[in-house]
């Protein structure tokens, strides 16, 4: 009796916590359908005009295109780099492997502003003009650690002897990679592509320093925040972005755990 009572209290707390986590963000979709330029209660009836206004904005569409490009390239590059590193760190006894792994996860512990300004200084001294490519470089920096985490846990999860068997049976290292490692790691690769895409797509501050005259979607949104009459359209855009990111995260975590036993499923970071 006492025990179940305690468990119930904890469940209540957990539900309350979850509500606190989600409710603030849900005001974005709520007010994006509100028929008033003021984001305030009481609600003024249902409208989709903010969505229409947002979709008709050429600058927004251009920024969206930029973000999709940057996200796709960043996801590909950081997943390839992550796969190489994860393979090396899980399959070979690399001298100083732990230290190297620690080094690659350093960007998670350094404020984005510091990463942004130091890359800005490097590019400036090297005479490289700011462009979407420099944004990709900055985004790869923060995405590689995630790619390595996702891919290492996937590679750790399957039996090394499968690769050894393939090599013993006369396949070359390259063919073993394509016919054994790659298919087994594929869910991890897809998951890594999706997650690094989201991180890049949503990243603001590093892009803000490195984009030059171009704008990614978060930079575009940042520019809109100064104009109160533009906020409802930003809400509409934000609601769609949040929905898309949440869907991609769920897909990524689900794909990553394909073929993993019920009790062993995990999400990135846990």
């Amino acid at each position, binding site marked *: 009796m006492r025990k179940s009572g305690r468990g119930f209290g904890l469940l209540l707390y957990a539900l309350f916590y979850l509500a606190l986590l989600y409710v603030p963000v849900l005001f974005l979709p709520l007010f994006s359908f509100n028929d008033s330029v003021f984001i305030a209660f009481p609600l003024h009836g249902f409208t989709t005009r903010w969505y229409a206004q947002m979709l008709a904005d050429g600058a927004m569409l251009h920024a969206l295109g930029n973000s999709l490009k940057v996200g796709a390239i960043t996801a590909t590059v950081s997943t390839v780099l992550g796969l190489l*590193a994860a393979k090396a760190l899980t399959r070979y006894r690399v001298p100083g492997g732990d230290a190297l792994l620690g080094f690659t996860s350093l960007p998670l512990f350094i404020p984005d*502003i510091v990463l942004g300004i130091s890359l800005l200084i490097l590019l400036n001294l090297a005479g490289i003009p700011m462009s979407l490519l420099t944004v990709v470089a900055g985004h790869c920096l923060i995405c590689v650690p995630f790619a390595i985490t996702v891919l290492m846990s996937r590679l750790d999860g399957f039996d090394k002897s499968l690769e050894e068997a393939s090599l013993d049976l006369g396949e070359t290292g390259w063919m073993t990679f394509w016919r054994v490692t790659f298919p087994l790691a594929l869910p991890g690769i897809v998951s890594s592509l999706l997650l690094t895409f989201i991180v890049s797509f949503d990243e603001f501050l590093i892009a803000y320093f490195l984009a030059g005259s171009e704008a990614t979607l978060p930079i575009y949104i940042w520019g809109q925040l100064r104009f109160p009459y533009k906020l409802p359209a930003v809400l509409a855009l934000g609601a769609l972005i949040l929905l898309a990111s949440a869907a991609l995260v769920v897909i990524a975590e689900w794909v990553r755990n394909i073929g993993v036993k019920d009790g062993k499923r995990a999400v990135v970071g846990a």
Partner: protein
Amino acid sequence: MAEGVALGARLRRFYRRSEGARGLALLSPTMAIMVTALAAPLGLLALYSFWSQAGYGVDTTPTLAQYAIAVGRPTYRALFYRSLEISATVTLVTVLLAYPMAYFVAFRTGRSKFIWLILLTIPFWTSYLLRVFAWKLILGYNGVINSGLLSLGLIGQPLEFLLYNPFAVVVTLAHAWAPFAILPIYVSLEKIDRSLLEAAADLGDGPIRRFLRITLPLSLPGVIGAAVLIFVPTTGDYVTPALVGGSGGVMISNVIEEQFDKVANWPLGAALAIASMAAVGVATLLFVGAMRAAARSIR
């Protein structure tokens, strides 16, 4: 010539046999990129902080002048303190609130654990900018809370203490960084050998003693990890103070950004960045040391 060929063949043999060499070769592209995009820029940032601004260019004579300004000017010093204070508060609040949540997921969710974990990590991946922006809407003078309370007739005029102050920054950051606290704590709780708890129960320890003597000490590495993972990046947060902080909630990153933007004094900006990282580093080491000592005294 023949020696060169023989050496090449020996190197190839060594490469094929040595696991370490093959591993390093596989790692090298990633490492090369990380060194170019992380180590080199940070090195240059440090170098820049010893230079000074001269008109549109920089004077590369080494000087400590920027640090003298960064540490000496009272406004900057106040910002350092405020940034550390805000981040420490955020860390404390976030970790305290996250602990029961992580405990619930680790011990009480059973088969639905995976779903809980996904629900708790979705916000972690979704746009930080939009999550912070949501709080600006909520806390604003004509925002969600004020207009909601006004239309319910609970208040006569909008509450002014909600937005544009350190309080708003703390609330927003605590919300935005919540997922970062749950996962490390959850991982350390999940690792605890359940038979230890059973043994303690068999030997007569009640639930509170079991928690204080087994669960809490064994989960401290996760708590420390969570605290560091929140404290270090939040001290350098730019978006939140810029959107909800107002003039009273400005943090050190906002003045660093100014040096690279409007003010265009990169050396001073670099010195401020390095000084703030050093301050955060020292504070973090002190905190981790204190926590370790506390953990030892519990046992």
